[in-house]
């Protein structure tokens, strides 16, 4: 199966679970144990909007907007405001995830049921057209400059 565009997140258990509050609901110490799941999932939504050139706050920029970890609630309020688009931007506006992201899901095989396939390229009708395109292609390659490397985004959560 190809994972094209589908978010994939590792959730790691702490090595010393007995002495860790990770993932354990506790009204005194952690009322937001699902935070890691929420955080990793939100990175997929964040990336989704950024690739569509939406100007949204970075998921890791909670402190920039005045949010701090609030005891047992951790950054719950930040994540709520991020998803509900209720982060004050300091200029009287509220920012966060655009609501369109909630109906913008990864591409799936089922999106192509019944789709018509087209050939990516068609062989030329005759030799002379082909020779013209061959020479044209050589000229294009000499004048062309592309960067084959691009960024691959990896995100880490340091919550332990």
């Amino acid at each position, binding site marked *: 199966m*190809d994972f094209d565009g589908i978010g994939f997140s590792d959730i790691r258990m702490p090595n010393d679970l007995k002495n860790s509050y990770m993932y354990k609901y506790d009204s005194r110490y952690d009322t937001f144990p699902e935070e890691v799941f929420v955080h990793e999932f939100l990175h997929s939504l964040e990336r989704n909007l950024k690739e569509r050139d939406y100007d949204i706050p970075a998921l890791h920029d909670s402190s920039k907007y005045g949010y701090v970890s609030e005891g047992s609630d951790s950054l719950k309020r930040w994540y709520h405001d991020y998803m509900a688009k209720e982060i004050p931007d300091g200029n009287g506006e509220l920012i966060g995830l655009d609501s369109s992201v909630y109906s913008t899901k990864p591409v799936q095989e089922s999106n192509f049921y019944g789709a018509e396939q087209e050939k990516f*390229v068609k062989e030329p009708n005759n*030799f002379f057209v082909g020779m013209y395109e061959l020479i044209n292609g050589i000229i294009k390659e000499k004048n062309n400059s592309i960067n084959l490397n691009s960024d*691959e985004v990896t*995100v*880490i959560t340091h919550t332990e």
Partner: protein
Amino acid sequence: MRDKVKFVSNFAILGIIFIVGFIIYCFYAKYYFNDFIKAQVNPKGTSFYRDNKVKATRERSYCIENSDYNDAIFYKTVNVEPNTLYKVTCLVKTENVSGKDNDNSGACINIIGTGEQSRVINGSTDWQEISLKFDSKNSNSLDIGFRLGGVGGECIGKAWFADMKIEKGEKDEDNDWDIACFIIDNINVTLNGKAYNVSMTQEDKTLIKDNLDRFEKTCESFSNDQMKITTHLFDLNSTITNLSYDETNGYYVAPENVKDILDPYLEEEEYDHIFVAIRMGDKNKNIEIPINDWIGLRRNGF
């Protein structure tokens, strides 16, 4: 006599024209790459040619041969409609393809300037289909290519590509998200000569289940019910036998490390996000797979 000389010289001229024409045709047959533009990171070490002997269809296949480690591609600028789904497929065959530093380079389909590429094929394999599904997002045109190498990777070997196709899809614009969480019970790996064998406990699994339920309700609530999430939990009595590594994270589980384990489930149903829950150490048993201080990690399957 004069007629004879004229006849011989005409014949010679025709012969020369024929030979030159034949040479030009052979050149064309071998190197004509349609509208594709060829490019490579290292200027030497790669040859591109059409192959009439190794092919999957009647048409000559497109061959990239990296005689030295390189990242090479032939691509075409394709006009696309913005915010539209597309799928590119092709057949690929490989011979002795291996990556220089990692296994994430090989023969693949790639959109230049993005991290989007199909799964990579390496080793020596017979013809098989690979595909890349993507959303054009804000673009009106994309450089879509067939690559022997990969994002940040170089490889050696030969790859043939054939029967390249493109299709347009229909978006699913509801707000129902299906999210899978796979608990993978065991990791059993040897890293730098040291064996690590670690397993999830029952307490681990209970916590994962509880948090997945909470995650579902939290996301619906925080989004003001703009999304509906259905989570699917799988407890797999399976063993991960290889891990991925990079300098930033140390060891981690990448999609390719669990592909064989998850494929049977992912072929049955489609999911919009995948969590993999694992244990990578146990202080009580003095087991600690080297990681760089992460508890959650996201890769977009690119």
